[in-house]
């Protein structure tokens, strides 16, 4: 049973001074899924992920990543995870190919470095020095270094921050390819559309807590109650209902053509803003 889980976290806690950066986070991420941690800046996404990556100690709670405690796991465990940190790489005076090859040498069963470089879309820049790359290209080098070890589980911390829309689409394509290969992917983002486009499931984090979790559809869209509204001689009427078809069928039986009929559902964005709106008020001073 535990083997189906890539990540299991319960009551995870981390304090910085007086702030509870992570305040009882619960997560279950299955093998092979793409999971997004969504939340505003300062919600505790990076701290959570860095605990799972073994970069930070937790102050409380339990965490298991690929069956091991990330606070104690060794090199064999490290070889099975890939990490793309939240920073743009400025690097030493080496070429993309040299750097990716160098990192490949740390792993027992690395991917072919040139194949990885092509996969992240840097085929033409392979011979260029890291220092001459654009921000988006440098970010792809980060991703190349994260996947060259053929990880079972890949962490991506805000991978597309600062990307233009086209670069973001290309990047999404890459994530989908990796997911199709069976890599479990955990990404943090504050872009809703990114979570919606990529993630099979997501958790919304606010003030160090998971305030909602589920599929993008369950948090917004077709799984949420719909609002049916139409015009009446007395003005516009609206009904919130989980069964809009029945409501409309009822209306049609009475009136035939229903004037001004609309059916709307809250988007993920509506739900998200509602969720973090409450959190943002509490955390406003922080």
């Amino acid at each position, binding site marked *: 049973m535990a083997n189906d889980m890539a990540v299991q976290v319960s009551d995870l806690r981390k304090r910085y001074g007086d702030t509870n950066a992570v305040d009882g986070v619960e997560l279950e991420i299955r093998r092979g899924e793409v999971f997004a941690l969504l939340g505003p800046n300062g919600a505790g996404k990076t701290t959570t992920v860095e605990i799972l990556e073994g*970069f930070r100690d937790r102050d409380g709670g339990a965490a298991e990543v690929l069956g091991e405690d990330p606070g104690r796991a060794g*090199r*064999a465990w*490290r070889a099975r995870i890939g990490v793309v*940190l939240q920073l743009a790489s400025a690097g*030493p005076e080496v070429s993309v190919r040299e750097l990716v090859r160098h990192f490949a040498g740390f792993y027992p069963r690395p991917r072919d470095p040139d194949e990885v470089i092509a996969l992240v879309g840097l085929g033409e820049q392979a011979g260029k020095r890291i220092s001459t790359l654009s921000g988006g290209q440098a970010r792809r080098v980060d991703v190349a270094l994260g996947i060259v070890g053929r990880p079972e589980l890949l962490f991506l911390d805000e991978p597309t921050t600062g990307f233009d829309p086209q670069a973001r689409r290309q990047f999404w394509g890459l994530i989908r390819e990796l997911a199709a290969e069976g890599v479990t992917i955990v990404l943090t983002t504050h872009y809703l559309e990114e979570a919606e486009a990529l993630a099979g499931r997501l958790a919304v984090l606010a003030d160090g807590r998971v305030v909602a979790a589920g599929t993008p559809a369950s948090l917004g869209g077709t799984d949420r109650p719909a609002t049916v509204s139409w015009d009446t001689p007395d003005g516009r009427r609206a009904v919130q209902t989980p069964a809009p078809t029945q409501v409309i069928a009822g209306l049609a039986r009475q009136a035939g053509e229903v004037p001004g009929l609309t059916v709307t559902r809250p988007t993920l964005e509506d739900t998200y803003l509602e969720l973090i709106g409450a959190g943002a008020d509490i955390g406003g001073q922080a």
Partner: protein
Amino acid sequence: MTTQTQTRAGLTPGRAPLPSLLTMGLSRGRFELTSFFREREVVVFIFALPAVLLLLLGSIFNNQHVNVPGVTTGQLYAAGMIAGGIMATSFQYLGISVAVERDQGMLKRLYGTPLPHTAYFIGKIIQTFVCVVAEVVLLLIVGVAFYHLPLPSTPGRWWTLVWVCLLGGLASALLGLGVSSLARSARSASPVVTLPFLVLQFISGIFVPFSSVPHGLQDAAAVFPLKWMAQGLRSVFLPPQAATLEPAHSWEPGRVALVLAVWIAAGLVLCIRTFRWQNRR
């Protein structure tokens, strides 16, 4: 141990073993050396600068008189500058470059891979060793070509050259790694490292003959390794009568070795206690 075996056994069958420490250490060493010699600022301001300063200082002060027959100011500078060069390629370079690696996230990125931490330090040792040897050779060439610096005349003197370079380089390298953690960012690393190093070179007899340094500053310099490295190197290249220029009127090889050994121990403790793989939040 048991858990380790269990987790290994629980993995996908046929999982390849991790690359060996030696392989990764050598790979790090090659990578570090490539980075060193490709960085133009490093090659100019760290590697070549001691040779340029030796040429400058040696030429400017060459007609100044030294109170010991058979010794020229140029030779005095050449011997001392080798000590300065060793410290530049070890202390100054590591102090700045490791702070930059930390600030740019390179250390954190390495920490996130299965690379053993020891392999990282093996890489640093290889890089520092090769660069220190290259620096000493460069300064020897300048010293021999321009200031008639005599190469060590006995096996004993060659041996002194080897151990002073090794102990001095190691002590300086460890101090450099330790100091790198003091810098809060890549930008602050250069002043944090370079300013004390400049002061140390003035009071330790690298830029100014040690006998011209005021006594109070001589005493201050005697706390740090550079003065002792320079003294050890003068004993390698200068005739025995030049020992009268030293404060103790002797080369004090035992004390040179002892002070450097104490600094190696202190530097090791400093590194173990302060080395960080990521910047403070």
